[in-house]
């Protein structure tokens, strides 16, 4: 394999691997910026992955809608289902003043249970959905994808990856340029201050948690319909936690989270090419497979330094308390 080819695959791999992480981490960013911790991202991704697979199969294969349309419907379904499943977490952490970590843990267990239960119900006892036939295919941007290396590597990617990058921009804009974003961040930093200015902490947090569910849902959806072509119990195995890590790594900033996810994807792609290039003759595959995780720690320790969580994150807000 020549150098250019290798670069293309590594870039490609990076993007494939990071797309779901970016999306879910964006959800995490919105969520925690509003002052609600969400370790339920894993569960939200799970139901998203489930919904995307099921709806794509149903619309494309059962209803016979056009093949190109089905996966988009799947992604939309993933978003909606993610939003719905975020509601109990929102209720618990906003209205019931529950411990947000516990509620997130409950969400993870609940989501996995429900998704697998429904898979068995819908697919006659099988442990996975049937194979999704109408998956996303990579799209070319005319002309641009003809640019050597970065063309095929970076610009010929799944629509979901484009979506991820676009959403990074949109959420950046939303958080830092719009009134809602200002309010959302204020609520996460100093809810009382926002409250005294007539900003409804409750409303803002509800919206944030539910939006976050939608994003994590889409993230999960990309796993099932752009990567594994089906849904089963292991489709989302630890991605939610990795997204959480990316969110913190990226200092609770959408662009930072994207950077962290891309970094992790790149490290993984590099480790994989290490194997393909035969490095396993010299180092065990376990080492190569552990490398991305080690590199992440190293990067954090070496370059990135301290980051502060939003001041009020994890704390339920009670009106009139001090």
């Amino acid at each position, binding site marked *: 394999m020549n150098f250019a080819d290798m670069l293309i695959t590594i870039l490609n791999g990076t993007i494939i691997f990071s797309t779901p992480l970016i999306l879910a981490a964006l959800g995490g960013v919105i969520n925690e910026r509003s002052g609600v911790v969400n370790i339920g991202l894993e569960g939200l991704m799970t139901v998203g992955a489930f919904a995307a697979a099921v709806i794509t199969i149903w619309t494309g294969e059962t209803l016979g809608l056009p093949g190109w349309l089905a996966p988009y419907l799947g992604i939309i379904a993933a978003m909606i289902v993610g939003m719905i499943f975020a509601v109990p977490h929102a209720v618990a952490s906003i209205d019931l003043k529950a411990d947000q970590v516990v509620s997130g843990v409950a969400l993870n267990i609940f989501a996995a249970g429900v998704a697998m239960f429904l898979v068995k119900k819908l697919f006659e006892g099988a442990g996975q959905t049937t194979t999704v036939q109408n998956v996303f295919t990579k799209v070319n941007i005319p002309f641009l994808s003809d640019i050597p290396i970065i063309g095929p590597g970076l610009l010929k990617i799944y629509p979901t990856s484009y979506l991820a990058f676009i959403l990074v921009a949109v959420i950046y804009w939303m958080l830092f340029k719009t009134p809602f974003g200002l309010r959302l961040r204020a609520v996460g930093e100093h809810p009382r201050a926002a409250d*005294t200015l*007539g900003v409804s902490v409750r409303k803002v947090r509800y919206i944030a948690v539910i939006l976050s569910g939608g994003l994590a849902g889409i993230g999960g959806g990309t796993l099932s319909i752009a990567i594994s072509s089906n849904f089963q119990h292991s489709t989302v195995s630890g991605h939610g936690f990795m997204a959480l890590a990316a969110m913190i790594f990226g200092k609770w900033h959408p662009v930072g989270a994207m950077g962290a996810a891309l970094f992790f994807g790149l490290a993984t792609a590099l480790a994989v090419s290490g194997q393909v290039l035969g490095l396993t003759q010299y180092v065990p595959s376990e080492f190569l497979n552990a490398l991305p995780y080690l590199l992440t720690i190293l990067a954090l320790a070496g370059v990135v330094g301290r980051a502060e969580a939003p001041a009020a994150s994890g704390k339920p807000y009670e*009106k009139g308390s001090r």
Partner: protein
Amino acid sequence: MPAVVEMLGITKRFNGFTANDNINLIVQKGEIHALLGENGAGKSTLMNTLFGLYQPDEGEIRIRGERVNITDPNMANRLGIGMVHQHFMLVEPFTVTENIILGMEPKLGAKIDIRKAERQVQELSDRYGLRVDPKAKIRDISVGMQQRVEILKTLYRGAEILIFDEPTAVLTPQEIGELMQIMKNLVSEGKTIIFITHKLKEIMAVCDTCTIIRKGQYIGSVAIQDTNVDDLASKMVGRHVTFEVDKTPAQPKGPVLQVQNLVVEGNRGADALRGLSLEVRAGEILGIAGIEGNGQSELIEAITGLRKIKSGSVLLNNKPIENKKTRQIVEAGVGHIPEDRHKHGLVLDYTIGENMVLQTYYQSPFAKRGVLRYNAIYEYARKLIKQFDVRTPSEFTPARALSGGNQQKGIIAREVDRNPDLLIAAQPTRGLDVGAIEFIHKKLVEQRDAGKAVLLISLELDEILNVSDRIAVIYEGQIVGIVQPEETDHDQLGLMMAGGGKGKGGK
């Protein structure tokens, strides 16, 4: 014309505790109305009720003669009520402008029109003489400017009735002067101000009327021209209060703390102390006067081992302690009443008893071979609570639930009772009522009389002048002069603090 604010028979209870008990407050348009009471008397509660943060259990509120039900701050805003809260309600990582427009953002399409917002803030700022930098981040600006941001927040919302809940507690004398002027400006524009402060002089200086409450109950209202400081104080506390600190001349002995040519880096990299030298002797109170941010915090942190010393020396009882661990310094005989009691002075989730042994928990009799002896700890705590009159339901009450004054008394009890050779007291009376201040000053003098060295850092010139035996003026990381309190006054100190002073130099 009806009064602009009428709060009639307001009662507010928290889980059975009555914070406001049938209180009346009547404020006329265009006046500055003082609300006076001890710590915990219920002033903030009453104002929070007016601002819609709390709902009264009984009583009614009339605004401009009309009966209203203020359900939330939005409603208060609509009624033209704005509030500057006792504890700042500012979002630290936000800019001044962002804090001001939050909740009422000017828009350009779907975006915040930040240009326009900044312009509006600038205009407001110019109009009322409230100097702020619209683009600065809150965490980078002085407390005084933060206070002005709080005021601008209310003006931006078009408030006609302004509530200032203890705005001066954290301000420097200069800033207080400016604030008084601002308040007068506002009133002359037709606004009405309710002003809470523990500093009776301020009330005498700017207010028209004063309403006094005590332990949640309405005591009465007086016109300022008919009253004086002593009268207000005794109405508020229920007994006579002395303002002069009762003390004999100091009889200093040998030096306890010697600081020489201290150079220390500040938070932003530049040197905050630039060759500072000073000396505190046994049996004297050395007051440090200075405008906030001239190196006071860094000096304390350097002495107590919380900040690295670049060069210079610190001797405690003639033994070097520079760059030692905090614990070693504490054990060597340094006590420290920190400026920020919530952040640095207490573990709020610990009981008041546990807080009493925050530095000594590992020593006998509180621990034996690494095991805590809670009996001894709580017995000790009971002793201190009694001795220092800390008002708390019990020694098992979380420190969080105590009022600020009583929290401070707890810290002072802890630090004084350890009997340190050097006691550093940073802003020990900030936010406290006159009764509590009197008590704390007495304790500092007692320490001095017991032959200890006391280093008092305060922004309050009255406090410095009343309590200190010698006054060192700090400016830009150096001591620019040392004066005797009886030989100086506000004006001279003020001048020196601004860097324009004369003095005996270094030591």
